[in-house]
């Protein structure tokens, strides 16, 4: 079970003279829950976008299950993601949106409903079966829709950018449980970025700190990790 699901090889991205990403080597194993922390502008979203082939790297490559993402599109089949509200199609109703995402994976409506069952307590009856468009939902509920959609279609790799932000406290805890359950039961490789150190240490088995585009720490989570992270960000 030691397959490498995501491999980043000497990835460099510059905007003008600014180097925003420089990762010589990063390998993420199957079923791992990988946490990414760092201050604003550290390159978290840039890294995610590079993995999703939404930006062009100046150098290096990203391999998703051995597929180089900028060469072939097949990685899309096994990847689910939610980075920002642009990933929602906000003029649709949540149900329409889910069935659209389902259709892109060739799923029938019943299969979509089945896969959404895990999220029912998370949705709190405020999302499914309502006439409201996504654009008229609260920020928190929009986030819930996006996160749930990222898990549709049996993805093997899921990327979530700041999933805990904008959620109310109990939803944050529910989400933690959902992520843990799904990654264990479905063996999903998870990449999660967060500003919330407590959540990320609770959920992730490995945590990387990004600073100015570089990986400055690579930690296996243990009881001291949270303390270590806090010290790092206090002194930086």
């Amino acid at each position: 079970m030691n397959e490498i699901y995501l491999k980043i090889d000497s990835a460099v991205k510059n905007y003008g003279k600014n180097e925003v990403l420089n990762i010589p080597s990063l390998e993420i194993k199957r079923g791992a829950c990988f946490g990414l922390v760092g201050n604003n502008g550290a390159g978290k979203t840039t890294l995610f976008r590079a993995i999703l082939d939404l930006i062009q790297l100046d150098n290096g490559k990203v391999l998703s299950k051995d597929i180089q993402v900028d060469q072939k599109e097949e990685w899309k089949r096994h990847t689910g993601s939610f980075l920002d509200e642009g990933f929602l199609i906000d003029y649709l109703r949540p149900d329409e949106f889910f069935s659209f995402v389902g259709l892109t994976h060739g799923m029938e409506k019943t299969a979509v409903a089945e896969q959404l069952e895990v999220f029912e307590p998370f949705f709190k009856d405020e999302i499914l079966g309502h006439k409201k468009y996504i654009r008229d939902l609260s920020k928190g509920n929009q986030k819930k829709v996006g996160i749930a959609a990222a898990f549709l279609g049996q993805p093997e790799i899921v990327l979530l950018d700041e999933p805990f932000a904008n959620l109310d406290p109990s939803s944050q805890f529910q989400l933690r449980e959902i992520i843990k359950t799904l990654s264990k039961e479905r063996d999903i490789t998870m990449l999660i970025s967060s500003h919330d150190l407590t959540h990320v240490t609770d959920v992730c088995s490995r945590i990387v700190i990004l600073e100015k585009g570089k990986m400055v720490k690579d930690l296996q989570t243990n009881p001291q990790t949270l303390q270590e992270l806090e010290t790092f960000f206090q002194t930086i």
Partner: protein
Amino acid sequence: MLQLIKHSFLAAIRRRFKRGEWGLKLLLGFLIMYFGVAFFLLGWLVLPELAKQNITDSVSAIDLSARFIIFYVVSDILMRFFFQPASSVELRHYVLLPISYRKLIHYMMGRSMFNFFNLLALLIILPFAYKLILPNHGALTTSFWLFGFLSILVGNTLISAYFKRLFAGNFRAAILMIVVVIGIFAVELIEGVSSLHISEKVFGFVFSGPLAIALLAFPVLGYLLQHRFLMQHRYAEQWQESGEDQRFWNLLEFSAKGKVSALVANEWNLMIRHKRTRTLLLFSSIFLFYGMIFYNRTTGEGSAMEIFVGIFITGFAAFNYGQFLGAWEGRYFDGIFSRNIFIEDFYRAKFRLLAGLMGFSYLLSLVYGFMEIRLIYLHTACFAFNLGLNSFLLLFFSTYQRKPLDLSAGSAFNYQGTSALQFLILIPLIILPIFIYIAVKMFFGMYAGYLAVGLVGLLSLALSRLWIKGVSDNFREKKYVMADGFRQKE
């Protein structure tokens, strides 16, 4: 009050020409001039000429104008109902300030007078009065006539705004209105009962004498209705426009089964759920009448201009929507391309959507067959060309778009995201078939010219797989630049 007027003036200026490009400004200026001049000429030259031919001893100029007033009133109210903004949003900025609410209402009603429809109507009414009524009936009668017409104009503006507010979110009422209008037009077709005739008798009598002053009742009614309505709905939450006529549009929703058709359905929903795209669709449908003015008038039979008109009639909706093909979904770009959607499928869906728009326009355009059977052949050829070649050109150009469109904002005459490029890409779409037609017609005649235009379209359609692949390959290169452009907030 003066401050309010100043604000709305600034809002208008700053919205439309906010960081605009010079090329675009020039083009817009040109378009405004073009329509202004066109309507002026219509009112000054064409209409009086047409009218003169119909004026006889028994039918005076006043009778003639009165004949159409009933049509004018009902179709005008309907048009305004869909297009004229019954704006209330701006009120929000002012309700908290120490300005009396009554004053705000008056300001709002006054402001609604300054709109496109009224300007157009004036451009027709004033020359008509000067050239036909004045010489035939004298100054006094002319003033009565003018007073009557202006009353109707102001009344229409107020009443249609009232309807718009009243029926917001009530799509049954909207349908009822359409039915009533169609009904009035239909009565005309029944033998013996002519609404034109009734209109002529009643209004002809009213317009020619002091009775015209009674028409003042019309704007007064409009004023009272709106005043009452606005006084009863003073709270911001009652102003929400989101419900509006959405329910009417929701009738047009459809859902899909396959992957590509899911994309088509999605984009169709985009079109019917945003004001800007809906207006675009309605505006395009009005454009179908373009040929009414053109065929047989300014052009001779078989002239190359007819190809121009034919391409436009069968393709206007698709061109209009297609010039922003990628940008409509600009805000969703990252999401779409990181999902399990392959680029080829994406463009296949776009093609189907364009084909649908073109096909629909084509079907409607067949009505021109009643004018002349030849026009059916013309439109078929143009449709084939649009479908086979122009659609792919639009797909190709869409890979050069970098600006996302703000779908939530505004509707008619909204140029956000427009650049001169959008107008330029329309040129090859139209020039090419005209050239083909002229070349072939020179040697083999008109119908061969139609055939050639149609055949080029069909041939190109046969190569559609190749086109889709080419566009997708081109897209692959541009993808990152596009994504970056679409991520920028305006």
